[in-house]
């Protein structure tokens, strides 16, 4: 007679041998890749001290002071600053709209694996569970793999210069990231409450509402807010390819060697990011 497992529900899908070896193998490969990259990426701190490297940096920094703080310039920059926030908010909203459904589909414990599917037939699991799961994962990977810069470049071609291209770029690239992280958060909730609700006759949606969402919500909100912070910075970069906001102004000032304006713009960006940080910290504390 075979060995009797003392199988608690959560550990039912035990790691196979190859999975247990994986961390060691991974660490070795990772270390090797760091060493290899050190050479390939031409990391050489001495080059910072050679020739006029430092002189150029000094010129850039000296040109920044004093920053341009006159009323006219600040007044002109109010609009791009607000635009940057608007791009980040709309971009994040689109990212959430894409990330939630794709993230749900990309969650293996919801679609095909684990305790909620114990009684589903094998073909049912593959057709209705694994196929949409794999498709959603693939889409999310594509969204994430293409940098938001490249997305912005494409969307500028599609919808023209301006903030909308930036919104779409952030929406798609960050939708990929949010979806991936949402699925990981959802996969890591405790399966026990889910099993209990299922065993008491709750529907799949009922299990999600009373078991999954309450467990996952704080992390989902925290990560979404973090991505919003990143989106503000990203919208500045996207301005460089003409997607509006502060970035476009930074690019213009740099091109005209107006480093005093650049400093002011960077300071505005800093204030924006810092305020979003404070705000999201408050919200996180409130939902925890």
């Amino acid at each position, binding site marked *: *007679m*075979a*060995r*009797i497992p003392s*199988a608690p529900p959560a550990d039912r899908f035990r790691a196979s041998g190859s999975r247990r070896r994986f961390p060691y193998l991974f660490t070795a490969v990772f270390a090797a890749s760091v060493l290899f990259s050190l050479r390939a990426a031409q990391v050489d701190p001495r080059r910072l001290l050679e020739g006029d490297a430092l002189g150029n940096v000094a010129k850039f920094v000296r040109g920044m002071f004093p920053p341009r703080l006159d009323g006219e310039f600040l007044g002109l920059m109010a609009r791009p600053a607000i635009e940057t926030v608007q791009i980040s908010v709309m971009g994040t909203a689109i990212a959430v709209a894409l990330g939630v459904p794709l993230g749900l589909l990309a969650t293996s414990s919801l679609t095909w694996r684990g305790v909620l599917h114990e009684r589903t037939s094998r073909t049912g699991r593959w057709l209705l569970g694994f196929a949409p799961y794999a498709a959603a994962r693939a889409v999310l990977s594509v969204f994430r793999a293409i940098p938001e810069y490249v997305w912005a470049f494409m969307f500028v071609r599609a919808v023209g210069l301006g903030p909308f291209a930036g919104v779409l770029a952030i929406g798609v690239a960050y939708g990929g990231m949010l979806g991936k992280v949402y699925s990981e958060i959802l996969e890591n909730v405790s399966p026990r*409450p889910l099993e*209990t609700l299922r*065993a008491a006759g709750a529907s799949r949606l009922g299990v999600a*509402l009373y078991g999954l969402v309450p467990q996952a919500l704080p992390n989902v909100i925290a990560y979404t807010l973090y991505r919003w912070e990143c989106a503000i910075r990203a919208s500045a970069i996207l301005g460089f390819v003409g997607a509006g906001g502060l970035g476009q102004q930074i690019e213009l000032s740099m091109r005209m060697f107006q480093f005093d304006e650049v400093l002011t713009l960077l300071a505005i960006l800093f204030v924006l990011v810092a305020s979003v940080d404070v705000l999201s910290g408050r919200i996180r504390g409130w939902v925890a």
Partner: protein
Amino acid sequence: MYELAGIRKVFADGSVALEDLSLRVGPGEHVAFIGPSGAGKTTLFRILNLTLRPTAGTLIFEGQDVAGLSDAGLRRVRTRIGTIYQQQNLVGRLRVVHNVLAGHLGRWSTATALASLVRPRDVAGAGRALEQVGMPEKLWARTDELSGGQQQRVAIARVLVQDPDVILADEPVSAVDPSLAVSIVTLLRDLSHESRKTLLMNLHSVDLALGYFPRIVGVRDGRVRFDLSPDRVGPELLAELYAGHRDEERQLERLRDGQNPLGAACRPLPGFRK
């Protein structure tokens, strides 16, 4: 209530948890399951509450073979089976009232379930259930602020709200301290007796099983080893049931020496008197 014939369960990794297990439980019966850890008791309970599908054999619940049930059919049967687990299978971040009202989920529509999260529906019912388990004041507390024993009472209150025909309790007291264990076992026994529910309980401690249940099923290696009234479960049978399992053998030694870990709360055990 339950009719099991030739139940066998093999997990995906090839390990056999249950082997040709047959069992019959009538309505209103109280049955305790004992046996060494790894005997397949938890697997058996997860088959009984229709979470797991047996690899072979038939499971008949109230005259109905559950193997061919559709998703909706399964849900209907599941609402009639209430389960209490070893670990607190509650959502700690939700208030007690929502965890208790989750017992309604088998009947509620999704819209009702969602609305109740915003504005709890059957507050009176949840309050009554909490009163029955002796902590009505905790209705609005956050569940993760309660102690282990209190959470186990919340789990019982949820089953009361669900109002099933059978209560399955899978080691309901192994995570709480011994003095609470007795009160939770008696609570479950009395509540299911009052409402004429069938009660099946998995127990780690033999003395609780023998002291509070009229029918004892010994499980080992995925099979039923004996199915007797407690006065016929003697030391030899128990020694055989737990042979090779050090911790549990020690528990038997303590029983034999009269050191009942549960103290006076338990009735004297037949066959163990000196």
